[in-house]
């Protein structure tokens, strides 16, 4: 009898306890910055590329098929490691920036031709952003390119954080990132914008680099292409 009632309840619940993970829908976005990076990837061989977004098979496919060396490091996920949270001298919780840099972005100097930073600076904890950018400066070759996306104020604090998949064109595929339970600070599984950089902030962030180019997009995003 109990089995029958359980089956009836399953019928009402629909598919029951489906364990299939929900794969976030893919959206498309045209990217002027990616178009410039793509031109470089298509015209040169054996470039060294660092992808700082969430692991993407599409990006690995695109880069390795063209004969480039692909390094992948999900820096945002690494920055959310709960063991990095320590109490400072005043007893306040802070992120251990020294340990973060000891464990991440540990490459030789002047290794990378291209760094795909995506929207990392907008979602990473503020105290880590400048040190991470300084480290990127040292691991990039002179003349190397870095692509980053920054939201404008109009995007709002709940602007979804995406992972980006390279396609063969200037079109990027985007999928919203959902946080694993271990990295959540509250019961929400979405990442929130930590701040909005204005143009001056962005210029300061990359002040050690040789040049910076802005591309304004309609979706409250500024794309930034920085030359080391």
């Amino acid at each position, binding site marked *: 009898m109990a089995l029958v009632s359980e089956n009836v309840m399953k019928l009402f619940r629909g598919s029951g306890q489906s364990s299939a*993970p929900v*794969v976030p829908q893919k959206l498309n976005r045209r990217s002027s910055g990616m178009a410039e990076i793509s031109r470089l990837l298509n015209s040169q061989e054996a470039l060294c590329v660092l992808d700082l977004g969430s*692991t993407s*098979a*599409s990006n*690995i*496919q695109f880069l*390795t*098929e063209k004969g480039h*060396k*692909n*390094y*992948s*490091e*999900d820096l945002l*996920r*690494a920055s959310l490691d709960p063991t990095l949270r320590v109490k400072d001298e005043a007893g306040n919780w802070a992120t251990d920036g020294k340990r973060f840099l000891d464990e991440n972005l540990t490459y030789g100097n002047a290794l990378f031709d291209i760094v795909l930073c995506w929207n990392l600076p907008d979602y990473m904890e503020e105290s880590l952003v400048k040190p991470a950018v300084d480290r990127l400066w040292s691991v990039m070759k002179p003349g190397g390119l870095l692509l980053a996306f920054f939201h404008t104020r109009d995007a709002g604090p709940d602007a979804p954080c995406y992972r980006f998949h390279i396609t063969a064109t200037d079109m990027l595929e985007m999928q919203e990132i959902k946080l694993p339970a271990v990295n959540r600070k509250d019961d929400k599984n979405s990442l929130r914008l930590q701040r909005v950089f204005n143009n001056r902030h962005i210029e300061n962030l990359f002040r050690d680099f040789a040049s910076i180019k802005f591309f304004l997009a309609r979706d409250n995003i500024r794309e930034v292409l920085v030359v080391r």
Partner: protein
Amino acid sequence: MDTPKSGEFAHIGKSVVIKGELSGSEDLYVDGQVEGTIELRNNSLIVGPNGNVKANVSAKGVVVQGKVEGTVNATERVELRKSAVVNGDVITQRISMEEGAFFKGKIDIQKEPGKAAPVAS
């Protein structure tokens, strides 16, 4: 290549911990912990969902469902399943990766002579 039937693969169960050098000439399924090196030149390694490998791995093919920390060198192919967490460099001819797999490191695709290097998601 999911959980293999016993007899097809040498099997290291989830309660087993091995430290040292592991080598062999048959396929190996690791669902426990291995620390050291794994060398299966002409055979395959499967790291099961409970597997935790901290080792440099050399094999013909490697399928990861659990955790691997170290350099993975596979002469034929590497498959990272959705639960895979890999920290280390991967050197292989082909790699496939499921949605949800985590990878930190360098991917070095060694092309077969006259062929492109396919990567599937």
